[in-house]
């Protein structure tokens, strides 16, 4: 390059200087070197670019030494190839000038071949730094744009006029099923051959300068799937203002459409859900118009069968209270209002309990769309709860009562642990009974306090209690604190308290009672003893009487028989020899002895009524009366008595004794109707002081009731012997027999108008039992 200096000094008029001027203007330098020697020359411009003195000579190696480490291998290889292979080069390289300035240069090398070998390499040299910087900044801005488009959060593509892709966003690639493909330079119509004509028309309109928007355009993807999108096509112009192509922007609506459809479906489902909800539930809009309602709501509010959807709640219920409206307003203002228990008085006056909720629902963030109202009739539950509360209150009261019953019980109560007999609690009565105060007792065992008279007694009790679980009326002697014994009636029960078996025992002091009982027993025993003694005495007396009666019947009769017998023998054997008067006396002896015989018989009969066992058997009184009647009519025929015997008069008693009764009563009737021209004798059922009885009556002589008291006494007679003969023993005997049967007898009579005897025969105790 050392040859450039002289040339630079050439005059401006010659061609060389023109070339130099022009090359200066073009900022293009020239250079050459000899490959053999490495010696070279360059023009002034080249030296200037290198910030070197243009007058100094140059060499190949000097020229190469300024390149940057990145550029240097490239230029060295190009030079080597130019020398060895005669290959020309054109490189854009970077160097650092002698003043340390980095510069981009363009160097073109041309080998000169002479005689088949490279004799010289020459070329041009140009400073392209400014140009290079522009190029770099352009590329950077392009890269930034590409990056921007690439990562735009929208589907975006830029096409040239032939609809070839210039730039595209990933989202676009993704949306159109082109992910992973390099589509730049590809024509949209090649990629989507089925693109509808309408779309192409829009593209054309945009290329013609129009901005076109579409709404909800169906679109078939490369893989055939159908999608919905909204898109926009607008033209872009180049720097010169000419139409460069179009930019397409698209938004995939498929998901939104799907979710809208899903939303519509879910609204239907929601409505269905509400309708069939097993609760009273209604959905209202902001104007309180029904959007959805459950059947339960309709039935609860008497709306069944009515069309309410779309109608206002207030229109349907014009009488709705201001309180409710206020609640609705609060809900519409965004508040959730819940009332767990709210009482309403129905139109019919009955009380109704409701649980209700008023909740806003949101159309979108922060915008209340209306209300959801839920109500539940909890009347039954509340009433049950109130009943429960009442019973809880009652329980509390009863607990207090029980506590009172414990502390103030007139019986002594103690709670003892079964395992070791330790006392947990006692009441006041226990304190006063045992002599220990509560503090002395609680925490100590009964054994330790020597409450039990012996360990065996305590053991026996616990054993029995454990076996049965409960003990009543256990009589036990205990010791008071001072050692004094007392008797208690003990009731005890095993119960689980704090997970452990305990004994709840109740003691009643029966010391006095027991003493009194023992006294009574002693007195009773004494009494029994005395009764026994007295009974024995009576028995002895009875036996004596029996012996006496027996003796009377046997031994009194024999002398009478002798008196009567020998009187008769005297009369029979010597009657003719006796004077009339003597025979009369004999007759008196015989009559007297006969009467005495009858008296003895009567006395015996009377005594027999009190002796021997009383048998109880069914007795037919009618039959007995009939027997007596026949006997009487045999003995004394022709009396013409009219009999009224009620058939089937049944009684319970001793047949032999009742025969004596009937014989006496009917016999009396027979006797005392002796003077009656039309005698009537009746035996029938009647009443005596309201009790059933039997009555034997006649229309005979009767008697004066003034003497009725004597009637049943032995040997007392109301008639003289010459009127009606008799012993005065019959009715006494009858009364004794009736009394022995536990019955009563009463007489009613009037002189001249007959007599009536009523007697009762109550069934024996055994017979009254079912």
């Amino acid at each position, binding site marked *: 390059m050392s040859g450039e200096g002289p040339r630079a000094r050439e005059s401006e008029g010659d061609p060389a200087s023109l070339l130099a001027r022009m090359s200066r203007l073009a900022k293009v330098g020239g250079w050459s070197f000899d490959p053999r020697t490495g010696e070279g020359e360059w023009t002034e411009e080249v030296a200037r670019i290198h910030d070197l003195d243009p007058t100094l000579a140059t060499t190949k190696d000097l020229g190469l030494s300024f390149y940057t480490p990145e550029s240097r291998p490239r230029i060295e290889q190009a030079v080597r190839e130019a020398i060895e292979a005669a290959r020309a080069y054109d490189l854009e390289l970077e160097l650092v000038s002698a003043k340390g300035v980095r510069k981009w240069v363009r160097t073109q090398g041309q080998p000169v071949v002479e005689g088949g070998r490279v004799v010289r390499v020459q070329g041009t040299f140009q400073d392209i730094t400014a140009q290079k910087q522009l190029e770099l900044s352009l590329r950077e801005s392009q890269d930034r744009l590409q990056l921007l488009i690439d990562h735009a959060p929208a589907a975006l593509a830029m096409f040239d006029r032939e609809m070839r892709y210039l730039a595209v966003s990933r989202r676009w690639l993704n949306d159109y099923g082109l992910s992973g493909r390099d589509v730049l330079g590809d024509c949209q119509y090649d990629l989507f051959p089925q693109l509808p004509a309408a779309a192409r028309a829009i593209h054309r309109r945009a290329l013609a300068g129009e901005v076109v928007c579409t709404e909800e355009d169906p679109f078939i993807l490369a893989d055939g799937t159908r999608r919905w999108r909204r898109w926009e096509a607008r033209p872009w112009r180049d720097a010169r203002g000419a139409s460069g192509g179009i930019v397409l922007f698209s938004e995939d609506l498929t998901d939104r459409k799907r979710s809208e459809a899903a939303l519509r479906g879910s609204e239907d489902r929601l409505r269905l859900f509400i309708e069939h909800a097993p609760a009273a539930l209604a959905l209202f809009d902001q104007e309180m118009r029904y959007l959805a309602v459950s059947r339960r709501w309709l039935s609860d509010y008497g709306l069944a069968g009515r069309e309410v959807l779309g109608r206002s709640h207030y229109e349907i219920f014009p009488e709705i209270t201001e309180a409710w409206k206020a609640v609705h307003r609060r809900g519409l203002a965004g508040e959730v209002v819940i009332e767990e228990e709210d009482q309403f008085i129905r139109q019919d006056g009955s009380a109704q309990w409701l649980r209700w909720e008023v909740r806003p629902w949101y159309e979108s963030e922060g915008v209340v769309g209306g209300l959801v109202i839920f109500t539940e009739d909890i009347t039954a539950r509340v009433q049950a709860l109130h009943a429960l509360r009442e019973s809880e209150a009652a329980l509390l009261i009863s607990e207090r009562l029980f506590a009172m019953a414990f502390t103030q019980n007139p019986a002594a109560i103690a709670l003892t642990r079964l395992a070791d007999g330790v006392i947990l609690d006692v009441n006041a009565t226990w304190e006063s009974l045992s002599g220990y105060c509560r503090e002395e007792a609680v925490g100590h065992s009964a054994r330790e306090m020597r409450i039990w008279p012996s360990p065996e007694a305590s053991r026996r009790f616990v054993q029995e209690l454990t076996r049965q679980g409960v003990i009543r009326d256990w009589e036990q002697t205990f010791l008071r604190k001072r050692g004094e014994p007392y008797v208690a009636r003990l009731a005890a029960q095993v119960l689980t308290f704090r997970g452990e078996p305990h004994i709840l025992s109740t003691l009643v002091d029966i010391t006095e009672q027991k003493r009194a009982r023992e006294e009574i027993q002693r007195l009773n025993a004494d009494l029994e003893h005395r009764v026994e003694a007295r009974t024995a005495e009576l028995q002895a007396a009875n036996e004596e009487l029996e012996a006496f009666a*027996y003796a009377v*019947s*046997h*031994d009194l*009769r*024999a*002398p*009478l*028989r*002798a008196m*009567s*017998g*020998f*009187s*008769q*023998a005297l009369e029979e054997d010597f009657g003719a020899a006796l004077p009339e008067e003597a025979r009369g006396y004999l007759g008196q002896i*015989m009559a007297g*002895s*006969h009467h005495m*015989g009858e008296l*003895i*018989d009567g006395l*015996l009969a009377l005594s027999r009524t009190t002796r021997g066992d009383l048998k109880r058997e069914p007795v037919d009184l009618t039959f007995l009366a009939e027997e007596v009647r026949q006997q009487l009519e045999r003995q004394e025929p022709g009396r013409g008595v009219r009999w009224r015997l009620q058939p089937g008069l049944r009684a319970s008693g001793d047949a*032999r004794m009742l025969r004596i009764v009937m014989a006496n009563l009917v016999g009396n009737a027979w006797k005392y109707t002796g003077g009656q021209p039309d005698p009537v004798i009746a035996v029938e059922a009647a009443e005596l002081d309201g009790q059933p009885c039997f009555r034997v009556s006649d229309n005979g002589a009767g008697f004066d009731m003034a003497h009725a008291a004597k009637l049943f006494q032995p040997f007392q007679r109301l008639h003289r012997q010459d009127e009606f003969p008799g012993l005065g023993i019959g009715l006494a005997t009858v009364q004794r027999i009736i009394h022995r049967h536990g019955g009563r007898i009463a007489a009613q009579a009037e002189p001249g108008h007959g007599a009536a005897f009523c007697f009762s025969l109550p069934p024996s105790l055994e017979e009254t039992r079912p």
Partner: protein
Amino acid sequence: MNRRGILLVEDNAQDELLTLRSLRKVNLANAVTVVRDGQQALDFLFREGAFGGVPAGPLPAVVMLDLGLPRVGGLEVLARLRSDERTRLLPIVILTSSDEDQDRLRSYLGGANSFVRKPVDFAEFAETVARLGVYWMAVNESPLDGGQP
């Protein structure tokens, strides 16, 4: 007429007299043997005691037995006679002042052939005794009649 006699067991002398008088009226007085208490009756029938030396003879056609007897009572006599093989079938008539049911029942249970109460009234008594005598001596055929050698 039965060749056997009547044994009257009677402690009351007056009753004995009246009985014998009644039997005499029907010509039966000669056939009557009288003993005055139960022991005597047994001795007589079994030829024991005071009657040990008396030669054995036929048993009486009937025994008229009072109940209220000294020493051995009438019911006791009845029991002893019925328990002995020899007198098991001997006709025995209880003739007594008692009209106690118990006495009558015990007598029949003890094996008496008849129970007759002595009436207080003499005419009745005489008639009763006479009928008894005639019945047992003349009418009744004793179970012992054929069996006695």
